Each structure stands twice: as C-alpha cells, then as structure tokens.
C-alpha cells in the first residue's frame, strides 16, 4: 500500500518522541550552561605550565629547552631563555624561560608539546570558556597566565598526574641516593 512506509516511519518518530519523556537514553539534551556534562579525564584544550610549590615563578618546571617550540606544528609557542639558572626538582641547575608565550588563537590543541617535553613541564588544560572581546591580546597567554600549580594538574588529570608524580619522585630519590655518597666522599677529602 502506498504510504505504508511513511506511516511506519511516523511510528518510529512517535516512539522516540514519547520515549523521551520516560527514558533517559532517548533524551540526550543537556541545558548548558545550567547543566554541564562531567569532564572526561583525558579531555584537553590548551596547554599550561606546571609549577611545584607555592611561588609560581620559582616553581616552574620548564627549563626553556625549546623542544616544544620547535615541535609545535603551527609554531605558536615563543620562548626566550633567561641567562640565570635555577635548581630543578632534583637540585640540578637548569635554565629558565624569561618569556614563554602561547598564542592560543593559533594553538590547535594537539598535545604534541606535552608529548615531546622531557621535563613534564607543560600539560593540557581543560578550561573551555575562554571567550574574550579582544582577538589578539587576550588570546596571547604569557608565562604568568600559563602557570598553574601541580595541585590543579592533579585535580584535572588525576591518573596522569599520579604517574608523573611517581616518576619525578623516583628521579628525586635516585638523585638523593647518588648525592649522599658523593657528599660523603667530598666531605672526606681523598687526598692523602
């Protein structure tokens, strides 16, 4: 019969329509911004710089090695090395960045900077409400805007942060273990 297929189809839409009143899985709309979906742990948006301790400038893990600057596909990271050094988490003297800018209007959230950084210094943020009235200035993030604490990192990516903490803790313990005999030998001069 002509029209049978259409009636059958209408039956499906009716089932979906009335189903949306009684069944959760047929009603999938979320009323943003009043309701929000939970963030996925792996979610990523734009990078930020991790710092340890209280003082963000002293605690920044970045050693200005500029690997991320080189590997970033759209070249949106800009780094200037500082002449002075500061100790890193294992107490080794390292360079630091005088300028560290990321132009998030260019950044494509690819996470390659995070993967290539050997110092666990740059990680992906999950913040997404970033609209501004200024296209250029406010989307160019400077070092102070990029710096976020390790606690924040632990909050947004708990599993990943726990792995990083464990790795860095192990490095620190190893360095301390190595430093002790070294300190002991330097304390007792070996010269006869």
């Amino acid at each position, binding site marked *: 019969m*002509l*029209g*049978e*297929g*259409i009636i*059958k*189809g209408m*039956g*499906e*839409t009716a*089932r*979906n329509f009335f189903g949306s009143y009684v069944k959760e*899985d047929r009603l*999938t709309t979320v009323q943003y911004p009043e309701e929000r979906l939970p963030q*996925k*742990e*792996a*979610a*990523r948006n734009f990078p930020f710089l991790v710092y340890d301790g209280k003082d963000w400038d002293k605690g920044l893990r970045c050693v200005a090695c500029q*690997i991320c600057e080189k*590997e*970033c*596909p759209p070249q949106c990271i800009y780094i200037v090395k500082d002449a002075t050094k500061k100790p890193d988490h294992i107490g080794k003297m390292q360079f630091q960045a005088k300028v560290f800018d990321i132009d998030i209007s260019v950044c*494509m*959230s*690819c*996470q*390659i900077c995070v*993967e*290539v950084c050997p110092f666990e210094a740059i990680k*992906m943020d999950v913040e997404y409400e970033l609209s501004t009235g200024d296209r250029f200035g406010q989307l160019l993030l400077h070092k102070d805007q990029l710096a976020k604490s390790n606690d924040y990192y632990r909050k947004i990516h708990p*599993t990943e942060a726990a792995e990083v903490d464990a790795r860095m803790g192990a490095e620190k313990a190893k360095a301390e273990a190595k430093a002790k005999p070294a300190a002991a030998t330097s304390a007792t001069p070996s010269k006869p």
Partner: protein
Amino acid sequence: MSAIPDTSERGVAGAGLSSTGRGHELRHKETANGDFAGDLLEVSMGPQHPSTHGVFRMDVTLDGERVVRLKPVFGYLHRNHEKIGENTAYLASMPYTDRLDYFCSLTNNWAYALTVEKLAGLQVPERAEYIRVITAELTRLQNHACLGGFLLQDMGASGTPLMYAFRERERILDLFESLTGARMMCNYMRFGGCRCDLPAGWLEQTRQVVDEFPRFLDEFEALLNENEILMSRTQGVGVVPRELAINASITGPMLRAAGVNYDIRKVDKYGIYDRFSFRVPLGEHGDIYDRYMVRVLEMRESLKILNQALRDIPEGPIVDPKARLRGFKPKPGEAYGRIEAPKGELGFYVISDGSTNPYRYRVRPPSFINLTILEDMCLGHEVADVVIILGSVDIVLGEVDR
C-alpha cells in the same frame, strides 16, 4: 514577441561555453510553435549554501528545472596541507590529518601512520592493531549514520533522522573523547602504535555502545528504508554505471553501490583485517538508494567486526619500542599507504630523503576523487536532485580542498 530579447547568441557566447564542446546543447530551445524562446539560466549554488556540505560551489546551468551543465568549483577551504607537510616534521603532520575529513579523524590518522610505518619499517604491536580496528570501525559507524541523516536533511526531512543519527554519534564521540581527549580532532595514532593505552573501563563502555547500536539501526531502517518519498526521490537518480565508476577511480561505498566488489579491507588486508569475518555489501543499480543501503549494511558489518575485535583484543604494549617521537628520520625511500576510509580509498604518498621532513607529502582524498563525476550524475536531473546527489557522494570539504 519583441519583448522577448533575442537570446540566440547569449546562451552560448555570453556564458563563454562555446568552447566546451557541449555548447550545441546549450543554445536556447524554441518550442514547437516557435513563439517562446526559453533562456538558459546559470545559477551559482554555494559556497555558503546549506546543501553543499561546506564551502563548495556549483555553477549549474539550467534549462527550466533541468540541469544541462554543472561545474564544481572548490578550493575555498584550501589550507596548503600537502605543502605544509613537506615543511614540518613527520609527526607534526599527524594533527593536520585530523582536519582532512574532520568526521573521521581516526581513520585519517591510521592512513598516515600506516604509510610512515611502511616507510620506516615499524612494527605495530598486536594490541595497537586491535585498538586501531576498533576506533576505525566506530568512526565508520558514526560517519555512515550521519551521512544517512544528512542525506535525508537534503531531501527535506528536516532534522528528525539527522537528530537520531547525531544522538548515536554523540555516544561514539564520547568514547573518542575519553580515549583521545578530543571528540573530533583526535590526533591519536602514532608511528608504530597509538599514543596512549585504553583508559579503565573503556572497553566495557564500547561494548555497551556496540550492543545498543543495532537498536538504532533497526529504528533508522524502519523509519526510512520503505519510505515512499525516499524511494521515489532516490531510486534511479544519480546513477553511476559500473564502467564509469571504475574509469573515474571512484572508491568506497559509491563504487560498491555500483556493484563492484572492491573493499581495501579485503583487497589489501592492511592491519589485521584478515582476522575478521565480514561481508562486503554490494549495490546493483548505482543510484542514490543503493548508496544509502550499502552504507546501512556496512554499518551492520562494522558491528560484526567490532564484536570480534572487542572479544579478541589482547593485553600488551601499544607502541613499537623502536619508534621515536623526536628526531624521527626514516631512511630514504617512498611509500604509499592506503586504507578503506568511510568515504573510500584514503591514501598517503610520502617520499623521504632521510631528513626530518618528508621530501614529498601527498594525500589521495576519496571525497575529491568521488566528486569528479558529479556532472555525469547530475545531467538531465532537476536542480532539487543535484542537492541529494551531492549529498549521496559523501564529501567533506576539508578533504576535498586540503
């Protein structure tokens, strides 16, 4: 009579068409009694037209409602992808491949990774191969579901089928987000494996999505398959004959709808596709309805593959230990890798000269090549059919223009 201007020359010379060889068809026609001379009308459809699936333009020449000539115009979304690929490191092109066919970023990743693995001789571990198959088939599911929805949208079924398709797609995109961190721009595969292992509980969630998907398919088919409007709009419209499809190197569901049994998953058996049992649905007439049905059936076959892969996935490493992220320099040589992307054969051709950047980087995009026969499909049909013919090709302009 004299109010009607003499258009005997305009239709040809004015449009500059006399040199195309089809000029003789384009001269205005006189009706039998000779008192009305209809003019040909050139319509520029697009680039900002909701039916063109992105920024794509068609110069359509119409005789009344009939299409007598159609010229596709593209390049509005050209991003220089291939040239940029020659000027950056191998890895840096990976996130750009997401932006080719932004509906199917994971299959794009796979095609590029496969090519570079061929070039550098990397071995992909077992578990990574399974993850690739699972993500690629999920990608196929959501692409085909959405294409069905978009096709109906073009036909005037405003919203409903598309909404149902997007509801399912959302579940799959949620899986992608919890695995890769992004819903569409996944950037997940790496040379020699995948970027990270599956998060806890991911396989169970995927199993649930896969188990529930047949219900959606049943509903979708009940909604549409026998719908008289759909059948009369699509059957016998936009026919691609077998020979034309082969000669124009059409691939993917469009080729199979024309009855050619050619699926690269079966032909090349790349990855581990030789381990799964699935069939290749074929069409018969090569019209829009067959293209739609082939995609629906392909979704059912994808579900079979997914069930097998989710059952068999082993534990183990996910990346070749020889693979390096930084300072990756494959030895000089060339490689062409191809996969069966949801839209057709997606190939990458990469030449290495031993440095950190590819010497040549070229994409063989299925949407672009499937689009080349658009005029052949549209000639003689009405302008409303052009919209659904284009919709049935399944193009994404990110890939057409690169």
